[in-house]
């Protein structure tokens, strides 16, 4: 994605407008506050934890983004 050559002031103005629109639509605050609850079985959650601590998840990400420069954290 190539950015347009615009000034910092213009970027600030766009950001302010977008922020106001998002705030008016209630998008800047979560629909619910409190402990995050992921509704999956305990065994599934344990499996996810094992994959992120072993590096399996990170390997899966590398495979997913291979050849997809838009998804890479360069």
């Amino acid at each position, binding site marked *: 994605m190539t950015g347009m050559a615009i000034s910092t002031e213009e970027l600030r103005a766009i950001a302010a407008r977008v922020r106001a629109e998002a705030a008016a639509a209630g998008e800047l605050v979560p629909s619910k506050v409190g402990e995050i609850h992921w509704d999956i*079985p305990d065994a599934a959650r344990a499996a996810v934890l094992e994959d992120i601590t072993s590096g399996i998840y990170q390997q899966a990400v590398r495979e997913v983004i291979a050849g997809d420069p838009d998804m890479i954290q360069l």
Partner: protein
Amino acid sequence: LIVVDDLLLLHIVARRTHPAVDSYVASAARGDVFTTGSWYWRLARAITRPGRGVFSQYLGTSSADERLRVGAAVENLPHGLGVLSLRRLVPIMAALPGQLNLLTAEAVAAAIVLAASIAVTTRSNLLTQAAAAVNVSVELVDLHS
């Protein structure tokens, strides 16, 4: 507010107990954690990818009902975690200086709208430089210590 990458998001929703993650879990409980569509999409694709992972094996041996429940959980971020739509972010992404990829532009734009910082688990020069150009701070979360 903070915008987190996919791996940190996964640590938060899976409730991994880790000194580097605990403060983000607390922030999420206050409603202060957002991610981006790109990071969320990357998470959804990676976690469900058939392969050698324990989660993949779990899915392979689960009942159809369990797979549906897990699929629904992956498809729906828990309440309390925020994602701004590209409808909001594209005008800012298009105005960002430099040559950025989608993932980077979306993260920086989200941080600008939210007046947030960005927390990542992988060092990224492109993201760091793009964020610095518009005065957005980037935290590197060390999950290996």
